[in-house]
């Protein structure tokens, strides 16, 4: 799903710049950027992106994992974590938070695209299933 609108939540300015260019070259639109979880929650409400690409370790009243739970619960949006953490514990917490995928730092264009496309597809399927079950009920 190219042209998907993506919200970047990352506190490293250089990484944000590289991500913006990489996403643009892959055919996505960067809806907005945020550097804290509080900014991210506001930006989701304001810009209504198709997907949130978010770091786990972030400044703000809550960390990335807690913010992902809120985004999933309140806005039904897919979240892909961008992280340097690759340990089992962090990954388990990310999955429990409802993450649709993760990209390990440093990211590659191919890895980024694969994670985003998989997350969008999973989200689309989940939404369709939910609609179908609502109609059946």
């Amino acid at each position, binding site marked *: 799903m190219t042209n998907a609108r993506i919200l970047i939540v990352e506190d*490293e300015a*250089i990484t944000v*710049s*590289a*991500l913006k260019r990489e996403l643009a070259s892959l055919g996505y639109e960067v809806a907005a950027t945020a550097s804290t979880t509080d900014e991210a929650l506001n930006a989701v409400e304001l810009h209504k992106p198709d997907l949130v690409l978010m770091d786990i370790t972030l400044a703000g009243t809550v960390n990335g994992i807690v913010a992902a739970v809120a985004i999933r619960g309140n806005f039904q949006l897919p979240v892909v974590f961008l992280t340097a953490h*690759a340990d089992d514990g962090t990954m388990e917490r990310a999955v429990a938070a409802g993450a649709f995928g993760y990209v*390990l730092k*440093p990211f*590659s264009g191919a*890895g980024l695209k694969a994670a985003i496309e998989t997350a969008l597809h999973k989200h689309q399927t989940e939404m369709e299933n939910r609609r179908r079950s609502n109609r059946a009920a």
Partner: protein
Amino acid sequence: MKTKQLGNSDLFITPVHFGASAWEQSAAAIHRALEFLDRISQTAATVLAIMLVAVIACFDYVTGDFSLTLFYLVPVVLATWYAGRISGWFIGALSAAAWLLGDPALSHAYGHPLMPYWNAAMLALVYGVVAHLLSMLHRLQTELQERVEQRTASLAEVHHRVKNNLQIISSLLMLQAEKLSRAADKAVFDECRDRIYSMARLHEQLYSSGEFSDLDFAAHLREMAEMLVRSHTPQGCVLALDVRADPVAVDLDTAVTLGLIANELLLNALKHGFAGRPAGKLTVELYGGNRNEMTVRDDGCGLPPGFDATKDAGLGLELVLGMTRQIRGEAKIENDPAGGTRAAIFFPSLLPSKTVKTELQSKPTYHD
């Protein structure tokens, strides 16, 4: 009196083969018991020690003159290790008292009426000293464990920082490459990013395995080969990748160098081996032993006639030769008799051989 002649069959009615499985069963039982003791509360451990003292005291009484004073150390150790020093002292005193209670039954003739009390006091003192020393050992062990945990957490944080910094460097290279107009110049920056990516993956492997000193290079080699083939397969070429890798444990320094060597060899094969070809096969092998061998083989166009790696090497091959010398290895780059190019790196085992559980023989995977 009738006696029975004992034959071999009588003597060995139930032959016991106390082999590896018996040891393993015993070790497993001890392990389970220790796990149980770790789970119970301090009060429960003390109660268990008191019960053990009672059992030993009964045996002591029944067996008479046979000394069981050493066996009282078992509840003393148990109480000290799992319930603390005070509990250990208490069980020590209780053990001495139990010994004293059983003593009159033995009808010993003492030179002085206070002598059994003196002996019991001496026993209590010995048990108390043992409990004290053991509690100190336990405290030291706990402190050491805490320090190891702190150090592990710090190392994990360092690896996390390293990966974040590598991400920043990679991002900077990407941003700088944007200013360039020539595709060849951009490709140089992309190659640098691949090298950084390779190093970052090693840190990730160390970080996620929890082993901060050495790692299994086979897993890294496979991941890197798959990643490079995915991103660098020439357009219009269907490429089969075959990775055959034995588990080979190497330290981080060697792994970084070997990773960069593999990165160069794979990129060379992908850039030059299959140009203008509709299909090809890339084989990556890693064999362990006294002398490890890593091979990258393609069935492409092969080396130019009269090619001499020491004289005609570009930057990539120059780096390969230099880094191979760095790990005290030997590089052999030649035309493969079956066609294509074969680059073999022989390097010594720097670590004692290890058993790595992962099975890394792979079937060929295809990319286009």
